[in-house]
């Protein structure tokens, strides 16, 4: 893990060593249910990115002298306010995707990024570093979801972005949440072992 508080360290942590999906296991429920293929994953990450970024951006201006409980409620209210234009925008860009997201779209308002990570990490940093951290955490999340969705689509449907790639076997169990959960665990384990391997090689 990159321990330094420099910009490079923040970016490395956000993308790799503290990757929100593969390392921290944050906001995985919509990923397990929704990220069946790349197209659905794009909808998912777009919705997540818009809501999370703007909610955290506005929430960072909430005064710190307000009681913690009230602050969290305020963050959720800000999230709800951000949700309204977000859903209008998303319905304009990808109407079918928003329908498919269903309950997970409004639930992004209460994601652990906004409720817990904001207070424990983001809002403790200086404004510049905070924005950098938020942006790269979101990029890390998005990249992980897209990678996972691509692997899942290949294994479960034998396609990539809807194009048939001629896989000899389709493991249809990965299409449902049960299989998605197992696959996410396997991909996360693989990701962490690669990081560990790189770390050991560097130490040697």
């Amino acid at each position: 893990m990159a321990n330094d508080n420099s910009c490079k360290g923040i970016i490395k942590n956000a993308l790799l060593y503290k990757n929100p999906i593969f390392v921290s296991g944050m906001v995985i429920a919509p990923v397990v249910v929704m990220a069946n293929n790349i197209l659905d994953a794009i909808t998912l990450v777009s919705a997540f990115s818009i809501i999370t970024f703007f909610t955290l951006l506005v929430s960072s201006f909430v005064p710190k002298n307000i009681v913690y409980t009230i602050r969290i409620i305020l963050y959720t209210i800000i999230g709800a306010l951000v949700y309204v234009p977000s859903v209008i925008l998303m319905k304009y860009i990808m109407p079918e995707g928003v329908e498919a997201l269903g309950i997970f779209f409004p639930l992004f308002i209460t994601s652990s990024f906004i409720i817990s990570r904001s207070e424990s990490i983001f809002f403790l940093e200086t404004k510049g570093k905070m924005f950098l951290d938020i942006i790269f955490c979101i990029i890390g999340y998005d990249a992980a979801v897209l990678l996972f969705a691509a692997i899942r689509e290949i294994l479960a449907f034998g396609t990539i972005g809807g194009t048939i790639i001629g896989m000899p076997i389709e493991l249809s169990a990965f299409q449902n949440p049960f299989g998605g959960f197992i696959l996410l665990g396997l991909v996360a384990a693989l990701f962490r072992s690669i990081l560990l391997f790189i770390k050991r090689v560097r130490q040697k």
Partner: protein
Amino acid sequence: MNSKTKSNFSIMVDMLIVLIVLAAMAIYYYGLRAAFVIVIITGVSVITDFICCKIRNINTEKDISAVITGLTLGLMMSASVPYYAAVIAAVFSIIVAKHAFGGHGCEIFNAAAVGFLFTSLCFPQNMLTYPKAFSEIPMTSIVSPDMLSSSFSNAFLFTESADLSLIDALIGKFNGPMGTGFVLIMLVAVVFLMFRRSVSVITFFTEFTALALYAFFRYNNDLMSVVYFFSSNMLLFGMIFLSCDYSIIPKTRSSRLIYGLIFSLCVIFFCDYSSTENAAIYAVIISSPLGIELDRKALSFADMINKRKGLLRKVNKPLTHINETLEILENNEQEK
């Protein structure tokens, strides 16, 4: 520590003997293809386990658990299962159900059950259709669907009756998985395993009594239906080789009793309310993680009684394999 390893190995050998007998019967019923499927699954399980152990630097001396997992999984398969499905089942069960949880002795699910469940979700058409016993099954990976039909379990679940003689039901001469219908052989095997203390008498009898009573009343006091009930849905096989698997079964007597009841209730629920084929697989996957928690609760309860009344764990005397919970409790006592 040595005695624990020896005991586990002895149990594994007993299980292996029984599984080899069942495999021989399966080969007699379904021919060369059955042998090929069993060999593939067992071979792939052993190779995958060996690779995983090498990667994780684990000593595999006196560990034949992969062979047992492979044989158990092989016997649960249809004789016509495509070879690739057999390979995937073996790889999945060893990597995901065994090594992902820490390897042999640390599993919370029966590896064979997980592998079977995964492949039956991936390839339901191939996994849940079966050839007739003593029919000529081609050696090709995909067997023509004309040769296959749904299982006896499926018919019995939906019609609650069976066009099958008692003898056929007892010797497993019906459509179904390769090695899970030999009721007579399995009854002899379970007696052998009980005498050898390789399966839990408490768990087996709890399950057997609860399910026999259920079947007797469920099917209008018809004893034939009780036999059909135990022959179908991999029930007897699941009770012996899956739910009584020594690596997942609870370690205290009272936990084993409750575990047996939970398994039986799950089977009843799946059979009665959802008419799920191979209910034993689902039941064992649901009930096995509860075993660890049952042990913890039982030992805490025993510990509490021990403290209050001075009794020395008479209520929940731990069996051969003392698990981590007991060690933690003993360490706590010593610290105090």
